């Protein structure tokens, strides 16, 4: 009976948690727009969340593209199909690796930082002081970070894929001798704008929404102690990573499953 009660408590806690997270998000993004105040905050967060994540995205994209070029070539050359290296690299990146790896890196780089920052603001009573100054912390702190994460992640995913394709080209054409014209032209004819590029962007938007939401909620609800912030930061990375991988399967099944 105790076990049953504990199971029930866990389930109701989880549902209450989702409700609280939803209430936080709606409180942050629904309301009268105040562009004069919120635009500078959004731009500032785009820099913190997006621009500062560029290095890790570009470097990771380049290496993953190069590895794809190398691995793809060694497999395709056995079948005399090395001309298809371009579409293999491009499709892998646009459909899967671009959105997924960018989201995972984003969760580790920007998501954890968002959680820690908001958790520390809570621990140092900055959120409470905003409330007492009649400034809604959801609109002032959470909203600009949410929109910055939601907008910047798809852009980072596109940059990741573009750099990755270039990395694949460097290894495939520059090093392994795949014909440059074939690499680009076969890629151009094989990649569909709507099926591949748009689906990748849709995936990325979903991941951006979920990762940023998780990161902000974990920070906003964390226990305001050093141990609490540490736990919340870890939880952001773990929960967001699992959510990305789970959602990726569901989205892939919906988009390409037949």
């Amino acid at each position, binding site marked *: 009976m105790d076990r049953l009660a504990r199971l029930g408590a866990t389930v109701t806690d989880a549902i209450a948690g989702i409700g609280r997270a939803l209430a936080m998000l709606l409180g942050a993004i629904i309301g009268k727009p105040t562009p004069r105040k919120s635009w500078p905050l959004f731009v500032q967060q785009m820099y913190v969340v997006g621009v500062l994540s560029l290095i890790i995205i570009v470097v990771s994209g380049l290496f993953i593209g190069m590895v794809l070029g190398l691995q793809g070539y060694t497999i395709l050359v056995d079948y005399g199909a090395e001309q298809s290296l371009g579409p293999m690299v491009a499709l892998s990146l646009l459909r899967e690796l671009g959105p997924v790896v960018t989201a995972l890196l984003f969760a580790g780089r920007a998501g954890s930082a968002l959680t820690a920052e908001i958790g520390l603001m809570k621990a140092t009573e900055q959120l409470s*002081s905003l409330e007492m100054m*009649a*400034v809604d912390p959801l609109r002032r702190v959470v909203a600009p970070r949410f929109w910055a994460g939601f907008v910047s992640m798809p852009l980072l995913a596109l940059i990741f894929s573009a750099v990755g394709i270039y990395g694949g080209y460097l290894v495939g054409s520059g090093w392994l001798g795949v014909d440059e014209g074939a690499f680009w032209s076969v890629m151009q004819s094989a990649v569909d704008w709507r099926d591949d590029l748009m689906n990748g962007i849709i995936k990325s938007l979903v991941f951006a929404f979920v990762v940023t939401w998780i990161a902000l909620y974990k920070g906003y609800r964390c226990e305001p102690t050093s141990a609490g912030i540490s736990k919340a930061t870890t939880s952001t990375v773990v929960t967001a990573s699992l959510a990305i991988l789970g959602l990726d399967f569901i989205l892939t099944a919906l988009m390409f499953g037949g």
Partner: protein
Amino acid sequence: MDNFVALKDVHFSHGQRTIYDGLSLTVPKGKIVAVMGPSGIGKTTLLRLIGGQLRPASGSIKVADEEVTQLSRKKLYELRKRMSMLFQSGALFTDMSVFDNVAFPLREHTELSEDVIRSIVLMKLEAVGLRGARDLMPSELSGGMARRAALARAIALDPDLIMYDEPFAGQDPISMGVIVKLIRSLNESLGLTSIVVSHDVDEILSIADYAYIIADKKVVAEGTPDELRENDKAIVRQFLQGEADGPVKFHYTEDDFAMDLMGEAHG
């Protein structure tokens, strides 16, 4: 309106733990009221209840004749523009300079030009003796300076009520003396009403017009500082004289120490 703040029969629990069980107190307009009590008694909770950050299970909390417990979010935020709180940590925004911290409420709630905001900020910083520190970041301030910078921010919008949460905690004697004088002089010069939560008995009683001692989930004693000093109630004597033994237990556990050491207390 004689009382700016009035709490009547307030009940509040945090989880399973009852914090207040029928708390009543009033804060007359224009006065400095001290709220004292042992640590962990819920003094900060009291300020959060008055500010509407927490809602009581039952009872009435009136601020400026408005029933805080019944206010809509919008009206509560309007009321908060008339009140201010100095947090124990200062709660300065760490990504802004001292100047921007003090200017923050003005930029959020007024349409004043930057020139006017600059003048107001400099006046407020001058009042707390930090005009020269305007360009420093919060991390560059000492504890006392941070508290004073936060005080400048708290008075930026010329509120009617300021709530001080342990303003003397962790301060050196000089900073403490400066903050004591500031609370008194700001109250007089700006015509404020002040609630000071503290357990620094001597400092707070030196400036308070009226004081409450909270223990055992309600007000156990109240009066002017002189009346409290003459109060012979055991809990008042223990608190004002800082005695370890008395109605408020120093030891958390009731188990016999010797038995506990021998491992028998818990059977």
